[in-house]
C-alpha cells in the first residue's frame, strides 16, 4: 500500500488547518484521527450507513467516500462545528423531544441529512421525509420518531415563514 502523503490546507469548523495526510486516508478518518473530531462515526466505511456524513463547502458528503486530500482548500464542517454554529439547534431539540435517536451512533449523520431536508425540501411530507432519510441507517428507532422530529421542524419553519413578510417566503425555496 502506498504511504505517499500530501500536505493539505483546509478549514475545519472555521479553523484554518494545515496537515500532512496519507493520500489514501478518507476524510472521516482524518477528522477522527488527526483532528480528534470523533462526532462523525464509522459504521461501514463504504458509504452505506451514513454515520460519517459531514458538510464540505456546505454540501453533504459521506466522510468515508471522500479522501482527505479532496478537502484541499475547502471548508469541512462536522456535527461538532455545526452544533456550535447553531444551525442544528432546532433539529437537535426536535430529536430530543421526539426521542428520535437511541444509541446515537447514527445521529450525527442523520442530523446532517435532516438539515439538508430543512434547507432544501421545506414542503416535504412524511413519505418524502422517509425517502430522504433512507440513505441513513438507524437500527434502534424504527425511524418513525425521526420522521416526526423532522416533520415538526418543517411545520414550525413553514409557520414562521407564513408569519413573516411575503418577501421572506420567496427566499425559502432552495438555500444556496
Amino acid at each position: 500500500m502506498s504511504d505517499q502523503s500530501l500536505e493539505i490546507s483546509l478549514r475545519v469548523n472555521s479553523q484554518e488547518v494545515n496537515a500532512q495526510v496519507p493520500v489514501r486516508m478518507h476524510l472521516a478518518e482524518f477528522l477522527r484521527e488527526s483532528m480528534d473530531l470523533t462526532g462523525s462515526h464509522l459504521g461501514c466505511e463504504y458509504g452505506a450507513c451514513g454515520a460519517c456524513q459531514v458538510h464540505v463547502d456546505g454540501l453533504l458528503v459521506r466522510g468515508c467516500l471522500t479522501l482527505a486530500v479532496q478537502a484541499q482548500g475547502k471548508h469541512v464542517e462536522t456535527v461538532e462545528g455545526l452544533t456550535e454554529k447553531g444551525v442544528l439547534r432546532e433539529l437537535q431539540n426536535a430529536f430530543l423531544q421526539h426521542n428520535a435517536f437511541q444509541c446515537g451512533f447514527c445521529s450525527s449523520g442523520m442530523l446532517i441529512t435532516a438539515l439538508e431536508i430543512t434547507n432544501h425540501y421545506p414542503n416535504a411530507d412524511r413519505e418524502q421525509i422517509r425517502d430522504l432519510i433512507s440513505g441513513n441507517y438507524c437500527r434502534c428507532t424504527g425511524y418513525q420518531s425521526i420522521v416526526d422530529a423532522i416533520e415538526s421542524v418543517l411545520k414550525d419553519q413553514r409557520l414562521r415563514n407564513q408569519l413573516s413578510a411575503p418577501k421572506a417566503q420567496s427566499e425559502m425555496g432552495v438555500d444556496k
Partner: protein
Amino acid sequence: MNAPEHARLINPHSEHLELLEVPSKTLPAEGKVGQSYIGQSIPRSGAKKLLEGRGSYVDDLRLPRLVHVVYLRSPHAHAAIKSLDLRDALKQPGVVAAFNGDDVAKFCSPWVGVLGHLKGIRSAHQHAISPERACWQGEAVAAVVAQTRRQAVDALDFIQVEWEVLPCVTDMQSSLDAKTVIHPELGDNLCFSRDLETPEFAKAFANADCVVEREYHFGRHTGVTNEPRSILADYNPAEHTLCVYHSTQAPHMMQDIFSRHLGIPESNVRVICKDVGGSFGIKVHVYADEMATAAISVMLKRPVKFVADRLESFITDIHAREHKVRIKLAFTKQGDIIGFDLNDLTGIGPYSVYPRTSGIEGNQVVNLTGGPYKHQHYKAHLDVVFTNKNVTCQYRGVGHPIAVAVTECIVDEAARAIKMDPVEFRRRNLIADDAYPYTFASGLKFEKLSHHQCLDKLLDTMDYKALRAEQAKLRGKGVYRGIGLAAMIEVTNPSPAFYGVGGARISAQDGATIRLDPGGMLQVMVSVTEQGQGTEAIFTQIAASAVGVDVGAVRVITGDTGVTPYGGGTWASRGAGIGGEAVLRAGKALRSNILDVATVILNIDKSLLDISCGYIVDKLTGQELLLLSEVGRIAYFRPDTLPMNFQSELTVTRHYTPREYGFTFTNGIQASYVEVDPDTGFVKLLKHWCIEDCGTLINPMLVDEQIRGGIVQGIGGVLFEECIYSEDGQLMNGSLADYLVPMASEMPDIVVGHISTPTKTSELGAKGAGEAGTAGAPGAVMNAINDALAPLGANVTIQPCTPQRILQALGKVSGG
C-alpha cells in the same frame, strides 16, 4: 462566606429558617409538590450529548501508548492450519507484534459454552485465537498489532498460511446425520436436544377433529449494530490490573470472564462501558477476538484496541434464528385448540457460544410455542446442531420470533381450515384474563397477563371490521391486501433460573447506589447499562420520584464495574424491571435517611416532614422548610452542629432479584396490514399496530420507541434479512449493500398502545418492553402476507418472505 450562608449557619435548627438564596439550577418547576415522574414522557436525561457529537464510544477513546490489533481470519469454513508464518508481517511498517493461537493461549485459557440446566448440552473447547484449525469462515487464526489500524491491516497480507481444507457441514439436516463430524471428540454434531410431552398427549391428538401441519423455515440473521464490536484493553503490569473499555451489555459478566481466563484477580479487572452504538444482544457474548485483544494487552503491557470492520461484523458478530420447524395443531371443529406438536431443528455454527450457550434460543422455542393459549397438550422435540458457519446465540427476542411465528401462523391455518375469522379463533383460545396465576403446558408460570384486553384494544385501535371491509372491496378490484395478527408472550425480568442455576456466573441481581451530594443533587450508580434504550433516563425519573427531587437534579452513572454495584447488565428485557426496582428501593431508603438529617436540623418530628422538588417540606401544608443543599451542606461540612450521637447516611445502596417467578411474562398482540403484488412478489407494509402490556410504564415515549424499533427489527427478519451461505460455508452477502436491513422508506407508521398490568412481584410493577416488538412482528407480517395470498391458493412458509419466495409460493417461478 456570604450573608445568607452565614444566616443559615447561625440558626440551623430554626423552624422558621429563611431561604434567602436558592441555587437556581436545582430549583424545581412550580406546583410539583409530591410529583412522580413515573409514567411521564419526558425527553431522555443525559442523552443530548449524543446529538452534538459528544458521545464517547470505544473507538473515540485515546490512551497513551495505544496500539491497534487486527485479525487474520480464515477464508475457509473448515480448514486445518498446516503452517502459519508471521515473520514477514513483523517486518512491515508500524508493526509492533504478531501472534498465533499458541502464543495467545499461554495468556488466555480456552472455554466451553455449556450450562448445567440445559441437560446434556455439549460443545468443544474454543480458543481466543484458534491454534490448529478454523471451523468457520471468519474465525481468527492470527493477530497483528501496529501503531495504526491501517498499518496492521496492511501487514495482514504478509502472513503466510498453508491451509488444508477439511470437509464442511453447512446444512442442518446433514449435520444431524453426522456423516461429517465437526468435533471428532464429541462423536456427532449434536449440541443439545430436548423432549417434552404432556400426559395423554398422543390420545388427545389422535381424537382431535382436525389437525393442521406446516413446516416453516427461518433464515439466519444478525444484529447489525451501527457501532461495530469494539474493545480497548489496558493492562497495567505495576498493579497487575486490567481496565477494559468495552462496547458491552454486561460489564460484570465480562469482568468475571477476563479475570478467570486471563488469570487476573476479579477485583483487579475493571470494565467500563461508555456509550454503546446499539447492541440488541449482539454485545452480551464472549467473542474470541475480544478475549484475544485483552490477552494481547497483557502480553504487550500496553493499551490495545480492536474495532471490527463491517465485514468482520457480518462474519463474526453472532447470528441467530436458523430454524426449520415442523408444527402440528390439533383442534375441534368448533375451533378449540387441543394441543401443539413441535419439532425444531436449529444450526448454531461450530461452537456453543460462551457463557450463555447457543442452546437457549431453541430451548425458548420449546418453552414459548403456543404460549398465549389455554390448551393442555403439548409435545416438543428440539435438536441443536453444529455447522461450519458463524456461531449463533441470543439476539433480540431469543426464540420468541420463531415461537410466535410458528404458533400464530399455524393458528391462522387452523382458523382458515374451519373458515373461522382468525380473531374469533384467538378469542376462543386465548387464556382468560381472570385465569391467573396460570401454568402453561410447557411448565412456564404466568403471574398475570391480559390477552383479551389487548385483543379488544387492538381491534378498536385498528378498526378491524372496517379494515376487513376495505380488504374485501379491494380484492374485487384485484388488489391483494392481507391482515395478520400475532398474539405473544415475552420473557422479561429473568430470575436466576435463566443462567445462574445452570452455573453461569451472570448476576440475576442488580443494584443501585444513590448519594445525596452536598449541593442537593443525586448521584445514581446502577449496574444496568445504557445502550440507547433510555435506562439512564428512566433511572433518573425513578430516583427523582423516590427521593423527591427534580429530574434535573439527578445524574446517573452506569456501565463501570469500578463504580456501580454488582449486577447483570442489559439483556432479557430486565433493565426497567430489575434495575428500576433497585433504584426505587435505594431512593426510598435515601429519602428516609435525608429526613432523619432534616429532623435533627429542624427539630421537627420525622412523621411531619417530607421531601418534594428538592426541598424538605411540611408534610401537611407542603410549605418549603429547607433546601436539600442545606441538608447536604450541614451533613457533610458542619456535622458539628448536629447532635453528638447523630451520624448522617446520605449514600444508600439497594439490590433487587426477582424471586417468585422464573420470569415475569409480558403479553401483547400485533397486527400487520400489507399489500402483496402477485406479479412481482413485492410486499408493501401499509400499517402496523401493537398493543403491549409491560406493566408500569415509566416513560411511555421511550417504551413506544423500544416497541417500534423492535417491530422494525422483526420486520427486517420477516421480509429482508438473511445471512446467505454457500454450500461450502462462504457468507455470500456480508455487506450492508447486500444484507438488507429496513430503511425508513419501506417502513410503515406503527401505532402502539398499552394495557398496564403491573407485576406484583415488585413495588415498581415494571416488566420488560425491549423485545416484544421483535417477538411479534414476524408472525404478524407473515400472517398478513398469507392472508393476502389466500384467495390465490398460495402460502409462504419461509422467512424472510422475499419477492422470489412469494412468487415461488404462487407457482410463478420455480425453486424453493
